[in-house]
């Protein structure tokens, strides 16, 4: 297995070790393998969303009921979450986010750049702890730290999965 397809399996293993029971996502190419793994797992409720902010509310409800949840999204999706993250900040709900980055490295589509370029400062303004993984070897450690911060401290933790890690989107066939 090549390094480029191995990191989603490492993330999946981290989610399982952490006891995550609900995984919410808007379909995303970068997260496609991890989403497939979660969909195939009978111990995980996979919840496909119409917009990422639904996932923030879902994760809050999950924690109220004793479940751990994780949110998978693309950098553009973070922008859809901002106001709903107030719910996590006000009530200190754990919010574990894995964000595939666009608009930062060999990006063909300039429309991805405005949101992609402000993900890090926006998350910090939302009092999130931010971790970044730029290669496969960094994924598991970043994810483990995010799990501890989110569920141990009941805070927002985000792992940014860089565009270098994910690979360039192919636009012509």
């Amino acid at each position: 297995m090549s390094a480029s397809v191995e990191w989603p399996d490492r993330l999946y293993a981290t989610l399982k070790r952490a006891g995550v029971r609900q995984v919410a996502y808007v379909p995303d190419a970068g997260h496609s393998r991890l989403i497939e793994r979660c969909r195939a797992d009978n111990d995980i409720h996979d919840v496909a969303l119409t917009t990422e902010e639904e996932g923030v509310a879902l994760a809050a409800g999950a924690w109220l009921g004793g479940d751990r949840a994780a949110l998978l999204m693309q950098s553009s999706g973070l922008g859809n979450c901002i106001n709903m993250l107030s719910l996590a900040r006000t009530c200190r709900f754990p919010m574990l986010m894995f964000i595939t980055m666009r608009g930062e490295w060999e990006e063909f589509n300039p429309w991805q750049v405005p949101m992609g370029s402000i993900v890090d400062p926006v998350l910090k303004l939302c009092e999130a702890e931010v971790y970044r993984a730029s290669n496969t070897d960094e994924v598991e450690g970043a994810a483990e730290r995010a799990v501890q911060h989110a569920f141990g401290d009941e805070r927002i933790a985000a792992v940014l999965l860089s565009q270098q890690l994910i690979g360039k989107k192919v636009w012509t066939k």
Partner: protein
Amino acid sequence: MSLERRAAMAALVANRGDLLVVPGLGSTTWDLAAAGDDPRNFYLWGAMGGAAMIGLGLALAQPDKRVAVVTGDGEMLMGLGSLATIGVKRPGNLAVIVFDNGVYGETGMQPSHTQGGVDLMAVASACGFVDACDVRDDVGLEDLAGRLKTFTEPLFARVRIVADDPPRVLPLRDGVELKNRFRAALGVEA
């Protein structure tokens, strides 16, 4: 015919049993507080558009209990996509109840889209809520209160209420305390 909102909420939670209740930002939170405090109420002072999805996460986490989201038409309209998400996920223990008076009561009675012709019953049906009921009177309300104890498919109800603005009854507003006492009432790990 339309129902009085405080009496409607009181009727829905009067004999709630194990029911977990998530009201929406604004008037339905005051309605639920007026009906009597309970640690199994998760009052929303914010998160507009999120009530139904909080209900979904809770319902998936607590499959042996029934969850009722009771929110207003304005709050539901902001999270309309969540009806599609719930319709696809089909949790058998989640009810979404909308108190529909066609106005944004919290901000000065401005008209909502339901007054402009948007039919939330039709939206819910189109999203896959097979069990959808339109409550217009006390008989319908009693029927809905009964169904909250027995439903096994995702349930949607529109309760037509009077467009009035009764005095606010304010519940606890510390979010951390609301969360912690809710989890303690369910006995989930700290």
